[in-house]
């Protein structure tokens, strides 16, 4: 009888250890997958840009500085590595693209061209996908970091070689324009 109880106790403890370990590993893999998704969407957006710039150039010839800003931002975005760098380059490119679309507003012929319209729709959906993959990544980082910091899973971080991960934070100048509250 005592043997059965002892075996059951050991089995329960082993089960507990395995679940805790696996949970950390699973959370970490989900974060990796979410990160891969961000990169896929950023790549998609980068691939759209040359076509978009060419189309806008066809109608708006005197906006060289805007085009240059987009091309520079794109080059930076495609060469960036590491969460913080990629996020910063992503923010800059988003900003430059906003400038490009604002320029397009001034050219009715461009806005009416079917090529531009389909590119605009594709850019809109890609921007949303980038934003959603960012949100999904950050949600998963939040669960992982919570698990890494809270008991009992925090005891297993060394064994599973899993640590806290970095949030994907985009610097958006538009967010800074929030009104200041004064008392």
């Amino acid at each position, binding site marked *: 009888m005592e043997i059965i109880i002892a075996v059951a106790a050991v089995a329960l403890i082993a089960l507990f250890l395995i679940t805790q370990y696996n949970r950390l590993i699973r959370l970490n893999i*989900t974060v990796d997958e*979410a990160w891969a*998704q961000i990169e896929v*969407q950023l790549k998609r957006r980068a691939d759209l840009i040359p076509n978009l710039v060419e189309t806008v150039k066809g109608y708006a010839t005197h906006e060289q500085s805007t085009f240059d800003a987009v091309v520079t931002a794109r080059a930076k975005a495609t060469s960036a590595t590491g969460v913080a760098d990629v996020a910063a380059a992503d923010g800059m490119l988003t900003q430059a693209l906003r400038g490009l679309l604002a320029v397009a507003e001034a050219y009715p012929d461009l806005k009416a061209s079917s090529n531009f319209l389909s590119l605009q*729709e*594709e850019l*809109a*959906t890609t921007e*949303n*996908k980038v934003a*959603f*993959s960012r*949100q*999904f990544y950050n949600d998963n980082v939040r669960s992982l970091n919570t698990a890494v910091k809270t008991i009992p899973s925090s005891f297993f971080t060394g064994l599973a070689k899993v640590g806290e991960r970095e949030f994907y934070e985009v610097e958006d100048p538009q967010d800074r324009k929030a009104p200041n509250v004064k008392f």
Partner: protein
Amino acid sequence: MNFRTMQAANRRKTFGLLMGMGILMWCVVYASLTYFGGSTAGIVPIAVGIALISVWGSYYGSDKLVLTMTGAKLIQESDNPKLFGLIHEIIIASGMPMPKVAIVVDSAPNAFATGRNPEHALIAFTTGILDAMDRDQLQGVIAHEMAHVANRDTLVSAVAATTAGAIAIVSDMLTRMMFFGGRRDNNGNGNPIALVFSLIILILAPIAAIMLKSAISRKRESLADATAVSFTRNPAGLRSALEILASDSTVVQQRSTAVAHIWIESPLDSKSVSKLFSTHPPIQERIAVLKSMESLS
């Protein structure tokens, strides 16, 4: 309330209602044993079996079955790249697999989701909803449908339908027995008050089961609205989509009550059905909840 507390509250309420369904089932069994004696105990597993077989088939094949019942046609990415782009956005936001997509040719704006699990999910839209809504609104609708898939609402409604069905079968069988055979338990020591109570339970149980089933369906709709917001973080999109549905008086052509609960807006005339029996919360109430979430962000 933000969407996280909303989700938790709705899950808790669904659980409570499913428990209520279980208690109701237990009451029916108790009542039948009190009224007819131990000889009726065999009826319950038979009734559960019949209900399980009839519901399980439609649950397992729900994606294909609903296609034929609603006349929806499956489409590919090339048929509507814009719609697929929007669906991809929600797929990324929710981390779920890509569902099958179908179109129902109908001018009434509506949409639904079905499928036994996320891998066999199907979401469908009427041509009316695709014409009537802009990007953000359609995104809200897609998020609501994918939320049904993520919350496994086909399974929840199958469980509710099975229990309600079993209760209906048991009380139907017993009412017939009452009519033909009377009480089998003739030892005459039954408490008259318990007998009257048992009779009332047997008569009222099927109605109570339908009301519980509808209440579960309403809670799942509210939950899907909250989960949709957790995907898009944009309550305004779904809110204005619901406003369009509320202002639109046309309803989907085929009014099969069997599939009424799966649409985003009930295709049945809500004015003629009491709130206790409706499968959806009042649309104005859903709009008000989403508005309160907007004011948070």
